[in-house]
């Protein structure tokens, strides 16, 4: 478990991380989400001890990262945004070096290195120089380095940046596999990735934690975002005038071909029943209806827009 309390970091006059408090529980995949410059990397750097905080503290399984760095650091594996690799070594040599630095020796070291190479599928490349590896493989070596020594928590900073679509899929599979035996925290600014992988989302903007919840909860709590697309037979006028009579609903005509009309309704709650009843009462044939609930994208945009974020924080 990682406890972060009142973490603050200033770079000159700008505050990168501002009194951040959060808890990362064991056995979850956490998505650390935020626009560029939100303070994600700075926060991860402080959690892993690469950077010292101006104030506040970080505890890993109860060990303070600055006061008991060795115990704290042996419980986390970290892959920074740029995989920290020595180009003049082969993955096997590099992992042996990291393993030894993490205190593994002899047979233990050999089996640990073999097992992480197996898990990250880099065993075929073990004798090539890291310099000659593709970006995807370099990232894998980076992850192998992080999980070496079996730390309880693995922290990955933007692990899919710069990978091609196939490599991104492979990386996501790898992250899911890692989550079976480790707590995984990964940062990203790609929303679909976070909603596909995580069971917890932390949203960060301008150094503040804006929300912390499951992706489903965040979407469900999103106000004013039940969007209904209704397709009806015939001209729009009759249908629109009928639907406008529904309370608290905005109605917009999306398209009309003369024989078919598509209308969008936005309301605070699910209005499917009242819409179908109203149309049936007016004798307008209903051809189709789709309900779009808020995606994580909507939540994210809404939260990071500063004027609305405060109210939403209270509501959540």
């Amino acid at each position, binding site marked *: 478990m990682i406890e972060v309390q009142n973490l603050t970091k200033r770079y000159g006059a700008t505050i990168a991380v501002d009194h951040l408090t959060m808890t990362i529980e064991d056995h979850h995949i956490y998505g650390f989400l935020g626009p560029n410059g939100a303070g994600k990397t700075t926060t991860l750097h402080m959690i*892993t001890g690469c950077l010292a905080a101006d104030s506040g503290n970080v505890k890993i399984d109860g060990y303070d990262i600055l006061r008991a760095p*060795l115990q704290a650091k042996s419980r986390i594996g*970290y892959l920074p945004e740029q995989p*920290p690799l*020595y180009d*003049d070594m082969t993955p096997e040599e590099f992992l042996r070096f*990291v393993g030894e630095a*993490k205190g593994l020796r002899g047979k233990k070291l050999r089996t640990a290195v073999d097992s992480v190479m197996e898990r990250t599928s880099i065993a075929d490349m073990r004798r090539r120089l890291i310099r000659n590896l593709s970006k995807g493989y370099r990232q894998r070596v980076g992850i192998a380095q992080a999980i070496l020594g079996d730390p309880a928590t693995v922290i990955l900073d933007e692990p899919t940046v710069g990978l091609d679509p196939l490599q991104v899929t492979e990386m996501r599979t790898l992250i899911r596999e890692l989550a079976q035996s480790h707590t995984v925290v990964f940062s990203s600014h790609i929303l679909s990735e976070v909603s596909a992988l995580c069971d917890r989302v932390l949203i960060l903007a301008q150094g503040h934690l804006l929300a912390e919840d499951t992706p489903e909860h965040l979407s469900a709590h999103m106000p004013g975002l039940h969007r209904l697309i209704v397709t009806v037979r015939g001209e729009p006028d009759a249908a629109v005038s009928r639907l406008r009579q529904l309370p608290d609903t905005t109605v917009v005509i999306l398209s009309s071909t003369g024989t078919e009309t598509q209308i969008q309704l936005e309301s605070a709650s699910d209005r499917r029943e009242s819409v179908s009843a109203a149309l049936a009462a007016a004798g307008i044939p209903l051809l189709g209806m789709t309900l779009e609930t808020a995606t994580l994208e909507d939540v994210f945009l809404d939260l990071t827009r500063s004027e609305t974020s405060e109210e939403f924080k209270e509501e959540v």
Partner: protein
Amino acid sequence: MRAIYKRELRSYFTGFTGYLFLALMLLFAGIYVSIINLTNAYPTFEFTLYNMDYVYLIILPILTMRVFAEDRRRHTSELLYSMPLRLSSIVLGKYFALVTVLAIPCIVFCCFPAIFSLYGTVNLMTSYSSIFAFFLMGAALLAVGMFLSSLTESQVVAAVLSFGAVLLSYLMASLTAYIPASAYHSLFYFVIVILLCAVIIRFLTKSTFFAACCAIVAELLLTILYICKASLFEGLFAKFLSALSVFSRYENFMAGLFDFAGLVYYFTIIVLFLLFSVFSLERRRWC
């Protein structure tokens, strides 16, 4: 520490830096041995080393420039910081690797006096103690260069800084002859040195208040000392500068003396700059 030491040592010999360093050291030694000891038939290897000590100016920066600067540029410093390692063991691991590389040519040098002794009378004691002193001086300069490398992420800047520092130390002995010896001048130079130190402290700690306090306290003490006993200051600055000359300490060994104070001096420099390197690494986490 062992892991860092092994990796560093290996890295000198997977690239060309280690070989370049060895080749240059042995080349220069070879040239001077053939001129001084073989052609002119002097049995003193210490004289050879004395003549080639300027080699350190050129080739030590080759070794030290990449020590920390490279880690910073390649982002492997983040790996070092996030692994369960003490900063002191990172510094020591890297330093011992440097010293090991330096030890290789010094071990080769040990063959020369032994070979000479086959053909005449050689004072082996002075020869070997001078090789040891030569090695120790190199080790002290390596500690300085390593510290300078920890200040920057550019290898070129690290090399230039390191070259500058070694050059200054090399010239220091001759420069001191031109320093006015009067107490008043000494005071003036010390005031400037304290101000410079304050600027460095400001740079290292990022605290103007702390640096200003240090400067004020130091200047006050200096002034009080000057008022109480001005005669103490006569020629003091020249003495202070010659204390910074790493090379002049070495001359005693060349003259056949086993200078115990010199050994202490070199060890002090090594310990001091290793500590500075640890501080410098720690400081980098704070900004």
